[in-house]
C-alpha cells in the first residue's frame, strides 16, 4: 500500500512538473501553425546538402514543436519542395533543438548541465549526419509514400535555379501571393510560381498553414488546436509517467542497478524505453530524471536523444510521409549513431 502511494506521488510529481512545459509547447506550436508563414522560410533554405541538413536541424528553434508537431511540418516542407536533407534534419532534430525542450531539460538536470549541452550537441550531429546521408537519394519515389510521390511528380517542387534569379523575380513572386491565396488552400510551390491546389485528401485541412484568416478566428483555432494537442500529448504523458513511476517503485532494485551501471546494457535498456515510451520531448527529461540516480549518464542521453527522434507514436505519424523501409533505415541509423555517441561518453572516449 505504501509502495502504491509512493508510486502515485512520483507519478503526480512528474505530471505536475511536466504540465507547464507541455502547455507551453502546445501553445507555441499552435501559435506558429497559424501565425508563421512557412513559404518564406522554405524559400530561404540552403541547397548544399550538408549545410541544408544542419540548418534544417536548427529550424526547430523557431518552430518549437515536439515530435507530434514536427511530422506534419516536415511533411509540408517536403511537399513544398524543401530539399530532403533539410526536411530530414528538421524531422529528427526539431523536437529536441528548441527553446522549450532545452529549458525543461535544464529544469530537470540542473545539477548535471553536461546532459543538457550534450543532448543538443548529439541531436544536432545525428540529425545532420542522417539528413546528409539522405541527400544521396536523389529520387524520392522509393522512399516516400506513393501519395506524396504522386503529388510531387505531378507538382514538381521549385527548381533550384528559380532561387538564383535575383531579387526582382522574388519580389514579383511575393506580389502574386495574396491573389493566389484568397481561397485558403493554395500553396506556392510549383514551377516558376504557379500556384498549386493542395489535394484535400493528401493533406488534412488543419495541417495547412492558414495565415490569411481574421485574428479572432485564428485565436479560436489556436485554442482548439491547443486543446486537441493537450489531450493527445497529455494522455501519452500520463501513460509515460505511470510507466516511469511503476518502474521506480516496482522493479527489483538489483536488476535496475545491474542494468543501469553497465555502460552497454544501460544504453540498450534506455534505447528500448525510448521507443516504447512515446512521451513528448518537452517533458521526457522528467521521465529520464527518475532514472538519474541509477542509470549511467550516457544511457540517459541515449533516451533523451533517440526518444524524440523515433518512438511508437511518431512511427505512426511518419508512416504518413515515408515508406516503412525508409523509416526502418532512419530508425536504424539514428539508433546506431545514438548508441555510438553515448557509448563513447560512457567509456570516457571524450
Amino acid at each position, binding site marked *: 500500500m*505504501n*509502495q502504491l*502511494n*509512493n508510486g*502515485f*506521488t*512520483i507519478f*503526480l*510529481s*512528474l*505530471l*505536475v*512538473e511536466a*504540465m*507547464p512545459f507541455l*502547455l507551453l509547447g502546445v501553445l507555441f506550436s499552435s501559435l506558429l501553425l497559424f501565425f508563421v508563414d512557412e513559404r518564406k522560410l522554405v524559400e530561404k533554405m540552403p541547397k548544399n546538402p550538408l549545410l541544408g541538413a544542419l540548418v534544417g536541424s536548427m529550424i526547430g528553434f523557431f518552430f518549437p514543436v515536439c515530435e*507530434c508537431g514536427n*511530422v*506534419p511540418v516536415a511533411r509540408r516542407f517536403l511537399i513544398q519542395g524543401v530539399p530532403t536533407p533539410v526536411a530530414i534534419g528538421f524531422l529528427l532534430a526539431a523536437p529536441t533543438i528548441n527553446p522549450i525542450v532545452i529549458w525543461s531539460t535544464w*529544469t*530537470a*538536470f*540542473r*545539477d548535471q548541465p553536461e546532459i543538457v549541452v550534450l543532448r543538443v550537441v548529439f541531436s544536432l550531429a545525428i540529425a545532420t549526419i542522417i539528413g546528409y546521408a539522405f541527400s544521396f537519394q536523389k529520387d524520392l519515389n522509393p522512399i516516400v509514400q506513393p501519395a506524396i510521390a504522386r503529388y510531387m511528380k505531378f507538382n514538381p517542387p521549385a527548381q533550384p535555379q528559380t532561387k538564383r534569379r535575383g531579387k526582382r523575380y522574388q519580389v514579383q513572386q511575393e506580389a502574386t501571393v495574396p491573389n493566389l491565396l484568397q481561397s485558403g488552400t493554395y500553396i506556392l510551390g510549383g514551377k516558376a510560381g504557379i500556384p498549386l491546389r493542395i489535394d484535400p485528401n493528401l493533406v*488534412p*485541412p*488543419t495541417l495547412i498553414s492558414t495565415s490569411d484568416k481574421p485574428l479572432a478566428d485564428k485565436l*479560436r483555432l489556436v*485554442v*482548439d*488546436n*491547443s*486543446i*486537441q*494537442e*493537450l*489531450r*493527445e*500529448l*497529455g*494522455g*501519452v504523458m*500520463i*501513460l509515460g509517467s505511470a510507466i*516511469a*513511476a511503476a518502474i*521506480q*517503485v516496482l522493479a527489483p*532494485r538489483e536488476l535496475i*542497478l545491474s542494468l543501469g551501471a553497465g555502460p552497454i546494457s544501460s544504453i540498450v535498456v534506455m534505447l528500448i524505453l525510448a521507443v516504447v515510451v*512515446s512521451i513528448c520531448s518537452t517533458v521526457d527529461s*522528467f521521465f529520464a*530524471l*527518475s532514472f*538519474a*540516480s541509477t542509470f549511467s549518464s550516457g544511457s540517459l542521453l541515449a533516451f533523451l536523444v533517440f526518444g524524440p527522434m523515433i518512438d511508437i*507514436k511518431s512511427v*505512426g*505519424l511518419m508512416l*504518413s510521409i515515408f515508406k516503412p523501409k525508409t523509416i526502418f533505415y532512419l530508425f536504424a541509423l539514428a539508433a546506431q549513431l545514438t548508441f555510438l555517441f553515448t557509448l563513447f561518453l560512457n567509456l570516457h572516449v571524450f
Partner: protein
Amino acid sequence: MANKNPKSKIPNLSLPWLDALAITAWGILMLRYWLTNKLNLLIHPNYFWLVIVTGISFIIIGLFKMQELWQRRRRDVTPNTQHISLFPPGWGSALLLTTAILGFIITPQVFASDKALQRGVTTDLLGSTRVKPQAFRVTVRPEERSLVDWVRTVNVYPEPDAYTGQKVKVQGFVIHPPDIGKEYLFLARFVLTCCAADAYPVGLPVKLPNNQEPYSPDTWLEVEGQMVTENLAGKRQLTIAATSLKKIPQPQNPYSY
C-alpha cells in the same frame, strides 16, 4: 467545414465538453496543491510559479472553451478538426480527467524510510555521489550545519578524522538499515532537485548511547552530539556520537534542496 456525419454526432457533441472539463479539472488540481501547501511534496519550490501560472491558464482555456460550446449548443457546427492521433476519440481527455480525479482523492505522501532503503542506503548514503556542493559556505559553524550541509561538506573533503570532535546539531528522520549494528541508526533527509521523482536520501549514521529500540523508523529527531569516526559496513565513516536525541514533529517542509 461542418462535419455532418449523423453517426458520429453524439460523441462529437459531448467530446469537446470532456476536453474542456479535463483541462479545467487539471487547472483546479494544480491550484489546489498550491493553496493546500502540498506542492512542496511534489516539486522544487523554484517551479511553483510555473505550476501556478499553468493552473490559471488551464482554467482560463477550459472555461473559454466551455463558454464557446455553450454559446454554440444550438447550432450544429462542431468544428471537429481531424487530427492524427494515437488514441480513439475521447481517450486522451478521459485519461486526463481520471488522473485529475485521482489527484483530488489521493493525497501525495511524504517519502519515508522504506523508500530510502529501496533507494539503497549503503550505496547511496554512505558514499553519496550525487550531492554537489551548491551554495557551499565555509564560514558556517559546525553546529549550525544542517544534515544536508554536512553531507555536502563531507563530499568535498571526505576524510572523517578531519571533523572529529566538531559539534553537531541536525534534524532528520530515522532509518534502520539492515547492515549496521543495533547501537546505530541512520538519520536522513530527502533532497529534491526538480520533483519527487528524483528525491534521493542523504544522511549520516548516528551512534546511540543505548540501542536503536526507542527510535522507530520514520521518527523525526533532533540529534546533538560530536563527530567521531566509526567503522561501519566495512568502511571508515563519519558518525555522529549522540549526546541528546529529541523527538520532533515532522517539519512543515520535509524535503531539503
